[in-house]
Every structure is written in structure tokens, then in C-alpha cells.
């Protein structure tokens, strides 16, 4: 009976209940405090809103852009004096900034109370792979090494067995930021209570609290005395690294004054009214050392410590483009589920997501806070075809494995049918106007390209390509130009020296005459002989730059013998023979036959070639 009364009262004080807003807020005051005014991105802040006075009322949760806010708990102390109810309600909100910068908590108001002044706080950028930035914290007091504490020690002091006492024990006194630590508060009594006990929860600094639900009750013997006890378990979560404190837990109780009649005698009990004594029992303050999480957190890590699983589902696996489906993502497990932000939405360029809603269901798993948080978001496929929703993942720190882990759902494949062309705005969100023209849905590579046959242009380009490759043939135009330049130079040199030019062209002039002679018909045999003679005399005339008429065999032989390279006697003999033969034929009545002309022409070619070498040198 006594324990039940304590439990009911304590549960009312600790439980996170739904706030019943009331307009009866006469004589209220509201204050708001922030546990820190400068934090690093990734850290959380705790906003405590205290409403004191007669009546009950709650302000609306503050709205701060780019800051996720959720209500973490509500504690209430209530007194009734002279029939007037006076209460103090402390609402706790957790602020989770999504970006760095300067933020302002707007004024919070309840009817009948002055609004709170705005509170400014700053969020500094903090790289993920470094240790989380810490706000200035009080100097850490020496804390014993982390070790699970045993069950709550039953006796407050050795050798003493008071009528009633209260204890508070932490499961362990060292934990990571956001890791659960269980606080057990036990109220022991060995005597009947003379009224309902009043429980004041300990004041927490740097900690969030969640009630673990059903309270425990039992009996035990301490120092030879029988006690009944009631216990409340709370899950505490350090908000930031550093030293967190748990203030005294207070139980105000009315007990029989020591020595009053409480004997077993029936009349003693019936007639004697025991003298009452109000006692205020409290625990010693406790400290908890919160350690920062190790570096190397994944990019999507949001600070959750525990063990999570993720499941995702859609309400329909087949729909038309432009129709809506609901994607439900359920994250469940142990940890401070309430503070879990929405997992990163799948990156799907061919679908659009719209605002989501979330709900939390808290449970206790063997003394650990957990439960599930459900996120529902509407997705609208923009185009038809198979649509795979990739796995949704959530990263967390697993204290049991002392490592970061990632829970991931399975991929979901949707069949998206062609949308109704008459339906209104299938490709855009509600209320939005369709963009004119073509809108890109997803960037991707273009489709295959069948090899087209080699057309004329392709063949020309291929030929150009082959021609352009480095090779020795590219020296040909250079050689051509060089040859042309040499030839041009030679021509210029000859033009400047007519005598040398005549000498150099002597053989070609003789050749022309020889060909003319060979071309003569049988009727022109005499002319052919004349041409042969002119070829021979003209050759030497050109070489010696003299008139052909002035040359005789003797003068020619003389010039040849006195040249730089005198010809051999045999050549001179051949020259004399041909010269004489031509002279003879010139005056012969029949001239020379065709074969004879040919023979003489060849002989003259051989002679001029031989003399050309000798006369050049």
C-alpha cells in the first residue's frame, strides 16, 4: 500500500505524459534556460522550460529553422495548500542543429505569463572525423573507472537501520555521449507510512532522462530489519562530453515518530494515534563522466548510441507515374530513439519525395530504453518503368562492439506504369506549376551507337588519317623543293654565262639533230647525212664556242689534244673515221641508207657522250 502510493506519485512525477493544456493559468511564470550557448555541429542542446504557479499550462514547442527539436521529458511537482493547487512543470526539449551558425530560441509563452526572453546560441562547424567539440564544462571531478555498479546497496550506513531511507545508484559512472546509463532510485521503509510520500526527481545537469516504465517493488532484510522498498529506474543519456551531475533525489514522507506506540497489542494500535513526523529523505549527488565518441564516425552518423535495425516498405508496389505511394521507414532497437533524425532520403532523380511525418513508440528492453521511430514519406514517381528504391541506412555507435555500425533496409522495387496523360500535373509536386518545356529527370549516359558503315566521308577521313601519320614519305615534298631550288639555281647560273650555257647544251642540240636525221625518209637521205654532219660539227662548235663553219677535223683534234683531259688516241681515231665517212657520204650520189644513218647516229651519240665527259672535266 505504501509502496504503491509512492510509485503512483513518483510515476506521475517522472513519466513522460501527454501535456494537457489548460487555460487556467492564473499566477503563472515561465522561464527558459539553455544548457549551453555555444556548441559544435553534431552536439545537442537541452532547453528546459519551467512553468511555475497555479494551474497547468504548457507552451508550444519552439520552432527554429534548421534545428530539429523534440520533447524529451516532462517532470512535475505539485503541492496543494489550502485547497489551491500549485505546480512546477519542467519541460525538456532537445535541440539538434542541422547546420552551423547563430540561432535564436524564440520567446515562449503560456497564457497569463510573461513570455521568456529570446535565447541566442551559436553552433560552430566541426569536422566529423575529429573528436566532437565540447562546450566548456566544469572541471572533471575524479571519477572512478567505468565499471557496472552492483545492485543498489541496501543500507545507507553500516550498523544503522533507520525507519526509512532512499538510495540512488548509477548503473555505471562512465559512458559515451548519448549512451544510456540507468539510474535506480529506491525508497526503503520499515514502518507504516502516515501519508502519501512525495517524490522530487533529481535535478539533472547535462543529461536527458527517460522513464523506464514499470516500477519495482519488493521486500528485503537489511541489518536484520525487514524493509519494503519501491524503486524507479530512469534511463539517462549524456548530452555532451564532460562531467554530468545527478542532484539529490528527495522523498518527503510522514513517518510515525520514533518511540510512539506501535506495539502489537490490539488496544495500543486501536486507541493510540501515533505521533507523526515529516521526514525529508534524500540521496547523495552523483556524477557521471561522459566521454566523447571515438573519431571515424560515418558521414550520416547522427549521434545515436545503441543497436538499431531499419526496415522499409511501401504501401503499393505498382502504381502509375505521377501517383503517390507511401514509403515507411521503421528504425527500431535500443538507444535514444526519440532523438533520431529522419534518415537520408533515397537519392532518386526519377521520383520526388514530399514532407514526411514521424512517430515514436518507446519501449524498455531489459532495462534499456528503445522502441521504434517510424518515418512516413510520400514519393511520386516521375517517369514510368521499374523504380528501385535503394536501401535506407542509419549509422549508430554500438557500445557493445565499441565500433560504429550501419543498419540498412532492403531495396524495394516498384513497377511504375505509364501515367495518365490527362491527369493533372503528374510530374510535379502539389501546388506547383508545371515547368514549360522539357525537364531533365536524371542524368545518364546515352544509348549504344551501332557502327555505321564507312561512307565516303569516313573513307576520306580515314585516308586523311592514314596520310597524316608520321612517316618518311613526308620528306618527299622537301626533296622536291630542294631539287627545284638547285635546278633553278643552275638555270640562273647558265643564263648569266651564255658560253657555258651553249657548251652545256651542246650534247642535247646534237641529239636533236641526230633524231631529225633518223626521222628522215628514204627520199631525204642526203638531208639526213647533212644533219648528221651538223650534229657533229655543231657539237664541237657549241663546246668550243665557235662557228661550226670554221671547224675542221684538224682544228677539232688540236683543241681536244690540248684540253685538260686529252682523249685517248682510239677515240680520236673513231672521230676521224666518222668525220671522214660523213664527208664522203655528203658528196656521194646516193647518200646513206636508213641503216647507215642509224649506225652513224649511234656512233655519234657514243662519241659525244665520251667527249662530253672529257670536255666537262
Amino acid at each position, binding site marked *: 500500500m505504501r509502496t504503491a502510493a509512492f510509485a503512483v506519485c513518483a510515476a506521475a512525477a517522472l513519466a513522460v505524459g501527454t501535456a494537457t493544456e489548460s487555460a487556467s493559468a492564473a499566477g503563472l511564470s515561465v522561464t527558459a534556460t539553455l544548457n549551453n550557448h555555444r556548441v559544435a555541429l553534431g552536439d545537442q542542446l537541452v532547453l528546459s522550460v519551467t512553468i511555475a504557479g497555479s494551474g497547468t499550462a504548457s507552451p508550444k514547442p519552439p520552432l527554429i529553422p534548421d534545428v530539429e527539436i523534440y520533447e524529451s521529458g516532462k517532470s512535475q511537482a505539485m503541492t496543494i495548500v489550502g485547497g489551491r493547487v500549485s505546480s512546477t512543470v519542467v519541460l525538456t526539449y532537445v535541440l539538434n542543429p542541422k547546420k552551423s551558425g547563430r540561432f535564436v530560441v524564440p520567446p515562449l509563452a503560456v497564457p497569463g505569463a510573461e513570455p521568456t526572453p529570446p535565447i541566442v546560441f551559436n553552433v560552430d562547424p566541426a569536422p566529423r572525423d575529429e573528436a566532437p567539440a565540447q562546450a566548456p564544462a566544469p572541471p572533471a571531478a575524479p571519477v572512478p573507472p567505468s565499471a557496472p555498479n552492483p545492485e543498489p546497496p541496501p543500507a545507507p550506513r553500516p550498523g544503522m537501520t533507520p525507519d526509512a531511507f532512499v538510495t540512488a545508484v548509477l548503473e555505471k559512472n562512465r559512458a559515451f555521449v548519448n549512451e544510456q546509463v540507468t539510474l535506480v532510485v529506491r525508497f526503503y521503509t520499515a514502518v507504516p507510512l502516515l501519508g502519501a510520500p512525495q517524490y522530487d526527481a533529481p535535478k539533472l545537469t547535462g543529461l536527458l532522462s527517460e522513464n523506464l516504465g514499470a516500477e519495482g517493488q519488493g521486500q528485503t532484510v537489511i541489518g536484520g530489519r525487514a524493509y519494503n522498498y519501491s524503486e524507479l529506474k530512469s534511463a539517462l543519456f549524456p548530452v555532451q562530453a564532460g562531467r554530468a551531475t545527478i542532484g539529490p533525489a528527495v522523498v518527503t514522507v510522514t513517518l510515525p515518530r520514533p518511540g510512539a506506540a506501535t506495539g502489537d497489542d490490539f488496544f495500543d494500535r486501536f486507541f493510540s494515534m501515533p505521533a507523526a513526523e515529516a521526514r525529508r529523505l534524500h540521496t547523495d549527488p552523483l556524477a557521471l563522466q561522459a566521454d566523447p565518441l571515438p573519431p571515424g564516425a560515418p558521414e550520416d552518423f547522427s549521434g545515436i548510441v545503441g543497436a538499431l535495425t531499419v526496415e522499409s516498405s511501401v504501401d503499393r508496389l505498382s502504381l502509375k507515374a505521377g501517383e503517390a505511394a507511401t514509403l515507411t521507414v521503421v528504425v527500431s532497437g535500443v538507444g535514444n530513439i526519440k532523438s533520431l533524425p529522419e534518415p537520408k532520403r533515397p537519392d532518386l532523380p526519377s521520383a520526388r519525395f514530399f514532407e514526411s511525418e514521424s512517430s515514436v513508440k518507446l519501449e524498455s528492453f531489459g532495462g534499456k530504453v528503445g522502441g521504434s521511430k517510424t518515418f512516413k514519406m510520400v514519393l511520386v514517381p516521375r517517369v514510368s518503368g521499374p523504380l528501385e528504391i535503394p536501401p535506407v541506412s542509419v549509422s549508430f555507435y554500438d557500445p557493445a562492439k565499441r565500433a560504429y555500425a550501419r543498419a540498412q533496409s532492403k531495396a524495394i522495387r516498384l513497377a511504375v506504369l505509364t501515367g495518365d496523360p490527362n491527369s493533372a500535373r503528374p510530374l510535379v509536386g502539389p501546388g506547383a506549376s508545371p515547368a514549360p518545356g522539357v525537364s531533365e529527370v536524371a*542524368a*545518364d*549516359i*546515352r*544509348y*549504344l*551507337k*551501332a*557502327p*555505321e558503315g564507312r561512307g565516303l566521308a569516313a573513307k576520306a*577521313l*580515314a585516308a*586523311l*588519317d*592514314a*596520310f*597524316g*601519320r*608520321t612517316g618518311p614519305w*613526308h620528306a*618527299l*615534298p*622537301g626533296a*622536291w*623543293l630542294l*631539287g*627545284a*631550288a638547285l*635546278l*633553278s639555281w643552275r638555270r640562273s647560273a647558265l643564263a648569266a654565262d651564255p658560253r657555258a650555257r651553249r657548251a652545256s647544251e651542246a650534247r642535247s642540240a646534237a641529239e636533236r639533230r641526230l633524231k631529225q636525221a633518223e626521222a628522215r625518209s628514204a627520199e631525204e637521205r642526203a638531208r639526213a647525212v647533212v644533219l648528221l654532219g651538223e650534229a657533229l660539227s655543231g657539237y664541237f662548235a657549241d663546246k668550243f664556242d665557235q662557228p661550226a663553219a670554221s671547224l675542221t677535223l684538224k682544228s677539232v683534234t688540236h683543241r681536244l689534244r690540248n684540253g685538260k683531259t686529252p682523249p685517248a688516241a682510239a677515240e680520236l681515231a673513231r672521230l676521224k673515221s666518222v668525220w671522214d665517212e660523213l664527208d664522203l657520204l655528203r658528196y656521194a650520189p646516193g647518200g646513206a641508207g636508213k641503216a647507215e644513218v642509224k649506225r652513224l647516229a649511234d656512233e655519234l651519240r657514243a662519241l659525244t657522250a665520251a667527249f662530253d665527259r672529257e670536255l666537262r672535266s
Partner: protein
Amino acid sequence: MIAGLLLAAALSLPAAAAPYHDARAAYDSGDFERAAAAFAALSAADPGDAALHYDLGGALLKAGKLGRASASYQRAFDLDPRDGDVRHNLDFVLKRSGEELTPPGIPKPAFAAFTALSSRELAGLHWLAAWTALSLAGLVLLGGAERREKLSGRLMGAAAAWLFFGLWWAGLRAVLPPGRGVIIAGRAELRNGPGEKFTVGYTAPEGRRVRVLSESGEWLEVGLLKEGVKGWILAASVEKL
């Protein structure tokens, strides 16, 4: 003889088309690994066909091989830089490795015009203009005054074309130099020397274009074209173009 050649060509068409259709069917069915193997065989048999390198790049990319896909698209681009699909897909894979086809600071139309002709085509035009100019110069030298007057205009035009294409070719070789390669390993490490004992100076993403500067055993000295830094990388991590 001609009839025989035509017959052989006609008979060879289905034989060549069948592997291509098999590769395309594998691609369409989502079996990108098989499609990549088939396209690789086809492009190896006809390395001058830009379309086959293009298709190979698509299959490799769909198979998750970004670096090799980038190399194939680069080959297709080198062969046919005017193809819009090739440019689009090459730009797509380059962006996924932190680069863009158009260098920063250069307008896209200007770069498109600059790369409208491939390096080989420019080389061909350069040499064609060179041959024309030198031949005309020879004729001018050998010809008389009349011919000289007649050819001098053409000679000037050919010389200007030679200079124009030569400068263009040289510029293109500066932007797309020979001896290029593509990193095909994820987060490849560039060391300060050819061996594991040297410290890692940089890491580079898969698909990043590099220029191979020298070789030493299993190591290549490469320069990152975009950042202008260099280091040594395992040869197996780079596919040369």
C-alpha cells in the same frame, strides 16, 4: 575477282553483325559484364571504329568500371570528336571523377570548335597543306615569270593553311597530349617514387585522366592533367590510351 570480293563482303556482313547483336542483346538485358566483354572483343578487332569504343564505354560504365569506361570514351572521342553522343558520355564520366570535358574558363562552343577535328585529322590536313605548299613552291621556282605570277596566290594560300593547321594541331596536342592514360583503380595512390617504400603524395579518383611521363618496372610516373601534380603509380592502376 571483283565479284568474288563482293561475295566475300556480303558473306562477311552477317558474321560481323552477329557478335555485335549479341553484345547489344546482353546490354539490353542488363548483363553488362558480358556486353563489355563482347564489345571489347569487337573494338579490339576494329580499333578504328569510334562507335565500338563508345558502346564498350557504356557497357563498362553500367558494369561499374568507371575508369575503363572513361578510357573507352576517350578513345571514341579521339577518333570522332564531332559525335555529340560521344562528347556527352565522355563529359558524363569525367564529371564523376571530378573533371569536365571542357576545361574551366573556356566557353563550351569555343572548345567544341577547337576539338571539332581529331588530332589525326589535323595531322593529315597539316601534312596535306605542307605537301601542297612545297610542291607549289617547287613549281614556282622552276617556272617562268608567267607561271610564278599564276601560282604565287595559291602558294600563299597553301602556306597559310599549313601554318593554320600546324598551329591548331600543336594546340590540340597541348590540350590532349599523347601518352595519356586513365586511372582505373579506385582511390589510386600516387607515391613520391617508384615503389612501396616511398610515401604517398596524393590520391586520385578512378577515371581521372593522367599523362604517362616515364616508366620504371611496374610503376609509371604520371602527371594529373587537371591539378598539374605528378607521382608514381602502379602500372596496373592505369589504362594507357
